């Protein structure tokens, strides 16, 4: 019998599989941190976890609440600062970063600044934080988010952090180093980006989800390749480690 799991658990397990051994990842709190911890405890024991406020390769004893709290440099190899972390990204030594936001468009641009007119915002959000730096300077960025129409929009009200901007060649034109969005992991599917147009494309559908469902929750036309994969559900091992070791307090995964 296949094990039971919730969508958060699925998303975390899927995200963790992309973090290969020996790579480095800048994470925030919550689900991305859980994915990095899970990867470290399964297939990527040598994954280097970095926190923007200065924590380098900690032995995370439990989930941090803030990307700058003391858990983020518990038994770390170095307790540095913001500039050290961001210049490490700028030098090209950070492979992955996780981002989040209120809106994401078809080129993977992210809005975490405001809804409505910038000078008279309907809603003011925090802004870039370190997200723009990660999106500009890391090799590959990933997003974990619920899949809903209000979030997946044709055009962001404000581009806080760069994806592929207006499509193929736009990052280069803007002067950004090579990089950009890699995978968007939602509760419905995994999306990647078309190599030619740089537009968002369905890569694999989660169990029980079809293309129509994903498209109906997306505010723009998704590219659909001839062959779409099926997301591998979490394994028993992944779920056990996630529940018992990564998030025993069930702060992120909730009560399944």
């Amino acid at each position: 019998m296949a094990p039971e799991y919730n969508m958060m658990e699925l998303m975390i397990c899927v995200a963790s599989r992309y973090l290969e051994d020996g790579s480095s990842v800048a994470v925030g709190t919550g689900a991305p941190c859980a994915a990095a911890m899970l990867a470290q405890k399964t297939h990527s024991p040598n994954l280097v976890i970095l926190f923007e406020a200065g924590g380098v390769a900690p032995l995370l004893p439990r989930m941090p609440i803030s990307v700058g709290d003391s858990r983020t440099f518990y038994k770390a190899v170095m307790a540095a600062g913001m500039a050290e972390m961001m210049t490490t990204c700028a030098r090209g030594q950070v492979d992955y970063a996780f981002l989040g936001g209120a809106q994401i468009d078809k080129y993977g641009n992210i809005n975490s600044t405001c809804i409505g007119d910038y000078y008279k915002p309907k809603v003011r959000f925090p802004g870039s934080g370190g997200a723009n730096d990660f999106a500009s300077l890391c090799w590959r960025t990933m997003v974990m988010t619920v899949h809903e129409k209000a979030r997946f929009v044709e055009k962001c009200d404000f581009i806080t952090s760069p994806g592929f901007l207006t499509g193929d060649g736009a990052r280069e034109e803007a002067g950004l180093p090579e990089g950009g969005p890699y995978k968007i992991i939602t509760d419905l599917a995994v999306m990647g980006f078309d190599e030619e147009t740089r537009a968002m494309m369905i890569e694999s559908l989660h169990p029980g989800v079809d293309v129509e469902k994903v498209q109906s929750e997306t505010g723009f036309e998704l590219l659909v390749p001839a062959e779409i994969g099926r997301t591998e559900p979490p394994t028993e091992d992944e779920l056990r480690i996630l529940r018992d070791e990564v998030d025993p307090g069930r702060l992120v995964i909730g009560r399944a």
Partner: protein
Amino acid sequence: MKVLDEGVNPLFMDPDPDKARDFFRGKTRAMIDKRTTVKEAVEKYVHDGCYLAIGGFGANRIPNAIVHEIVRQRRKNLGFLGHTSTHDFQVLAAGKVFNRVDSAYIVGLEARGLSRNARRYMESGEVQVTEWSNYALAARLRAAANGVSFELTRSMLGTDTLKMSAAKVIECPFTGKKLVAVPALWPDVAAIHVHEADMYGNSVIRGISVADRELARASKRVIITTERLVNNAEIRNDPTATAIPFYMVDAVVEVPYGSYPGNMPYLYFSDEEHLGDWLKAEKDPDEFEKFLDYYIFSVTTFEDYLVRCGGLKRMEALQRLENLVDD
């Protein structure tokens, strides 16, 4: 140097390094006793209209006694450096002390949620904002700390964050590539909370320094609050540990539990219950006014606030939490 593009929002502070040098020329290098009280430090160094920066990282190693005192003394029209400011921003926004903000991260408390009251203030139109990324702000401080007028980064290119900043895109004279020039920022005053300091201001930070090394070097006036005052001999026994030397510092105040309800690495964890109370109280403006009155305006010192939050018993519980000892 060719300017290819530039942000449209205001630059709040003059990036001229010679003006900063003139100021620093007049600042004393004497190793003198700088101990004072929170109240006096704020009266003396945080003036209406000045540009303020807060050290730490939102709810981690923040100089919260100074933050409360600025609100209690009802400062107005401050400029503010919002580089991952979370609880500090929430408290200062509650006091409506600032009217212009260089923002990389404001109104949120990371995974805890958004501050409704700070959002209301930022959506009211009363506050001018210029956007940056966290690194852009750290780089602006580093430019100031280096005594030059700008620093370079490849962040922000191609985005509205750049458009709503006061940065300039320039062409690299060596490679022809695009770079973002971010102007030096010399805050009028910064408050930084540290683990140990002597009476002259020599300060030790344990754990991550965030942007505080740059901030102490960039700021014209520096107020240090410290968990523990130590003898100068202790500093001299381990000079490698000194993050901030005395000649940058103007005031030193001993404030045990001074980062509460924020985390202080190796000493006490954040009080998530009390931080949750702030978010809850903000739901209803009348309720929030009473809340502020109880915790800030009706007390005279930060120690009184700590007592109202549960005193030593609560602090000891947070110490156990920091040390991963389960209650």
